[in-house]
């Protein structure tokens, strides 16, 4: 099986990797037909290299003048198109739109309360006592009795409730809070 013609064209130009070049070289040693094809490509390359001169008697001054004229025509046409278009006042719009979006979102959040997706919990009612107080959580809703952070606070599960106690440094009184579930 002979390699494709394009492979011999690349081979002739020295543009193949070493592995492909090695494989094609091995094929060449045994295939006279492909050797002929490669020689044809090499001949064409030599011919092209030998005929890459510019036409004789080329007027460089005239060619440069024509190119300058074409550039001026292009610039003039661009200005005509620009003058016809209305200037876009994008800056005030870019400033106002995000602010409007935030205000609108805030307004919607205040007036629209979609039904809460209730998270699945291990049990229906959970009571918790932490350093911030006691809390009753029930199907996405919660009731908490808070207390200020206090070094002298205690918490425990007391019967069917949880309890926390703290010393109110403002009044000097101890306050004890419970939450209960029925």
């Amino acid at each position, binding site marked *: 099986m002979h390699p494709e013609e394009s492979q011999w064209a690349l081979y002739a130009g020295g543009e193949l990797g070493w592995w492909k070049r090695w494989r094609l070289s091995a094929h060449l040693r045994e295939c006279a037909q492909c050797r002929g094809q490669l020689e044809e490509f090499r001949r064409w390359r030599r011919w092209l290299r030998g005929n890459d001169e510019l036409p004789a008697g080329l007027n460089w001054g005239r060619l440069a003048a024509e190119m300058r004229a074409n550039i001026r025509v292009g610039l003039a046409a661009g200005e005509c198109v620009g003058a016809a278009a209305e200037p876009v006042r994008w800056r005030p719009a870019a*400033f106002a739109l995000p*602010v409007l979006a*935030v*205000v609108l979102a*805030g307004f919607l*959040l*205040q007036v629209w*309360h*979609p*039904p*809460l*997706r*209730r998270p*699945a*919990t*291990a*049990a*229906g*009612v*959970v*009571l*918790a*006592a*932490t*350093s911030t*107080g*006691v809390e*009753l959580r*029930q199907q*996405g*809703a*919660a*009731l908490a*009795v*808070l*207390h200020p952070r206090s070094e*002298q606070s*205690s*918490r*425990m*599960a*007391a*019967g*069917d409730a*949880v309890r926390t*106690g703290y*010393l*109110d*440094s403002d*009044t000097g*009184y*101890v*306050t*004890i*809070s*419970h*939450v*209960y*579930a*029925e």
Partner: protein
Amino acid sequence: MSMRNKLAVTLAAVATAWAQTAVAPAASTLKVNFPKDAPVAVIAADWGESRQTARGSALMLDLHTALSLRNLAPRRIRGITLLVLAQAVTPGGKASVSVPCLDVQPGETFPVRLDLRLLRPSAGAGPLVEVELDGVLFDDLSFFGPNRLNCRRQMTVWELEARRDRRYYRAVLEAQGPEGLRRQILELLAERPRLDVQVSRSGRATAVAATHEQAVEFACLNLPRAPLELVRGEAVVSGSEARTPRIEVLNRSSRPVRYFEVAWLLRDPLGEEFLAGAAPATAGRNVAPGERAAAVQEAALRFSRPGGRPLSIAGLTGFLSQAEFADGEIWIPDRSALDDTRLRRVLPPSAEQQRLAEIYRRHGLGALIEELKKR
């Protein structure tokens, strides 16, 4: 950042804050409802810092209220309990705020702070929170109130503990002088180990499957002169969770007992102990002399150290913390029983001990001695 951009950012932040947070109409959100014949009256209510915030589709209300109450009764008030109901938010759920160890003279006013947070799925009409009077305890241990939360017994326990502790410190002052009293009070200010607790009334406190569930027996700590003897008890333990602790008791006294509570401690694998809970009596009837009964907490309780670090339960200890005889008299452990080194290290100071320690901390030893002489 250019001036125009700064202005835009500021405007956006203000707009967001306006949209998300608003001053809650606390006066209409919270309704204080005391009976007409109540021995206390609401003189003023400060609704200062109440706020409501949108949290996604839910609404969070922070209600910070300080009620100023006046004692209308001819006796001194020793304690008060307010019942907090939020039926529109948590049906069946309720909360209470108690202030024990008071000494409010007739005609005198005193403050009660209510700091509540409610999270509810959507807006609704009508007051969200109702605050009612559940009970007032006077200096002669008489009581006024509907007692819906059985607060009378607990308030009496707190008052008896306060009297016991004041007697003890007066005795220390007499026997050891001011320096002896100072040493005792400084001991109160020492840090006690504390745990966060989460209680689930049905099923497990967490959704995680149990891996090493086992029944752990209670060590029974029988205090001297206790009317009931702890016989045995156990709880199903799995990691940091204990389920349905149950402790059996035997009435060793000569009087029937109407109610009792068994407090229990848990121990971690390093031997550190924490006060965990109190299991109430379940009988619902008098326990006759020589009869057995049980205290049970029908719940799954999960414990963690402050900050959320889990705790492994290695052992449980129970002791009788209160008992009420059929005639209404209440027993609490005496000071010598609580002087057990193990309990002293674990049990938090009583409400009165905390109050006395605060007087010492803020006003010094002289003020504390004056306070002890008062009553």
